[in-house]
């Protein structure tokens, strides 16, 4: 099912290696909650090694799509294909085992565990027992070091700020050795320099580990500098799919973000 070994050597892809083979294909995805349609017939592909921004204002349906991919929601219609396999409707844990890691918009650390334990358990369970315990702890240290958090066995989540908790989210997702990382509003709650750092980190994750990234964000700013492509959503529908520069001059995108008057 998978095109390569999840633990194999990373592809050293440049920022514009562009889409080669679609790693993730979302086709005709629809999600309704009772009578409310949150996402309507959305389709897009994410190529291996790409960083794709999934953007849109609040309530545009990006988090719903994200949750359908990550297994939190079962799609009402359409398909989610990952590495040639249909994953729509699978449980969150099984989707993680397939090679999709995710972070949360509002960090959800396991506060009763240390940082290292938070990440080590992700390495163990994320790889579904395909690794030995000693390796889990080593991988946890590597993931923590990569995001710039302490790697000792005693540091707890007490007193960690928003940026550090976001880093922990990232380390936890990385420890599952994903092929695809779903980053949910990684910039939310950060100051400008922290936003720049977060964006650089996502770039580094792609270049050093060869991980494909879908980055959900409601603000464009820093994201546009890093992504290869953006998919823009509004009211649950896709309104744009293309290069970031083109998005910034697309009248519909401008209208959604800045209002109809400016677009006109």
């Amino acid at each position, binding site marked *: 099912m998978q095109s390569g070994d999840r633990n194999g050597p990373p592809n050293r892809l440049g920022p514009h290696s562009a889409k080669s083979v679609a790693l993730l294909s979302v086709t005709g995805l629809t999600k309704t909650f009772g009578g409310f349609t949150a996402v309507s017939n959305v389709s897009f592909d994410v190529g291996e090694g790409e960083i794709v921004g999934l953007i849109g204002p609040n309530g545009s349906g990006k988090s719903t799509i994200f949750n359908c991919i990550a*297994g939190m929601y079962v799609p009402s219609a359409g398909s989610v294909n990952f590495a040639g396999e249909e994953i729509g409707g699978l449980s969150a844990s099984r989707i993680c085992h397939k090679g999709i890691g995710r972070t*949360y918009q509002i960090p959800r650390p396991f506060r*009763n565990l240390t940082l290292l*334990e938070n990440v080590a*358990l*992700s390495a163990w369970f994320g790889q579904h027992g395909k690794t030995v315990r000693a390796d889990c702890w080593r991988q946890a240290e590597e993931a923590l070091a990569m995001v710039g958090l302490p790697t000792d066995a005693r540091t707890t989540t007490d007193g960690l700020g928003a940026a550090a908790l976001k880093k922990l989210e990232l380390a936890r997702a990385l420890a599952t050795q994903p092929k695809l990382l779903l980053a949910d509003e990684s910039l939310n709650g950060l100051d400008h320099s922290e936003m720049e750092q977060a964006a650089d980190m996502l770039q580094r994750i792609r270049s050093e580990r060869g991980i494909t990234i879908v980055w959900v964000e409601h603000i464009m700013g820093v994201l546009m500098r890093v992504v290869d492509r953006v998919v823009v959503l509004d009211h649950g529908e896709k309104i744009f799919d293309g290069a970031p520069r083109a998005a910034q001059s697309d009248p519909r995108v401008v209208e959604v973000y800045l209002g109809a008057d400016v677009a006109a």
Partner: protein
Amino acid sequence: MTGLRLKPATIIGLLAVAALPLVVRYFLPASEKYYLHLLIQILLWSFIYTGWSLMGRFGLTSLGHGAFTGIGAYATVMLWNFAGITPWIGIPVAVALATVVGVLVGYPCFRFRIAGHYFALLTLALTEFVRLCIVGLRDFTGGSLGTQPRRYGDGISLYALQFEPDRMLAYYIAFGLWVLGLYVWLRVDGSMDRYALDAASQDEDAAASVGINVTRERLKITALSSAMCALGGAIFAQYQMYIGPDTIAGLGLSLNIVFAAIAGGIWVLLGPTVGAVFTQVLAETLRVVIQGSATLKGMFGSSALALDQLIYGLLLVLFIIYMPNGILGTTMAWWRRRAAARAATGRAGN
């Protein structure tokens, strides 16, 4: 497996507990039977409480463990009394039965995320269901009066696993069971599953998204916990040579298990053991005080004997509010703080 290498202090501790009956025999020869009985009870209940704490420590507050001890005890005794099946086979069957019941009740709870109060209520219903079954099947079980395992020979038999007349033997059987309980607790504590269950108790969705199959992890610990309690119940029946729906099953017992484990401390290895010492000593003290008090007997009549349940209830509330880490957990935390403060003072002095 990590962390199970025995430290000298652990070996000394185990030897000390193993030597307790000899101490009793030497210093209290006149009351040897009574004190041994007390110690055996403490060890047997410690094992059961430890079994419960395996789930309780992960936020799975079960009020259904009285059902598992009941199934363990009754299935073993019924198989022996009515089919002549030795407890060597009867106990594994009873343990397996309790495990299946635990998994059957646990699966829908965990699959559909029934947690907290609802989980407690559902497991409470299980306890009551098992108690009603025991009472309803009175032709076999003796109903609410209880029944006895059929005595084999002089009451000491390897084949029938009967050892009640020999308190010394009973003590070492209970001691072996207690050590087994501690070993299981340590194995769980040192496993990756423990981290998964800790994580799931904090945030089920986040746990699932790092690859933890929360339902499966919880079922595993439920199976282990219910099996331990069933084994404890079965051995208890073999020791007491009497089983009743209120002594080894039922809601009162379920609540006692929860109270004792919480009172001792559910997050520390010896917490449930401390809980067993505390509840047994408390129960005995209350019994002696109430039986010896003409005033209390005059006021309440024979119902004075039920006062211990009332006091348990009050204490449980107080423990949950003021000492959620239990006696041992709180003491250990206090000790660590004191040691840290001393170390800090020492550094400042230098």
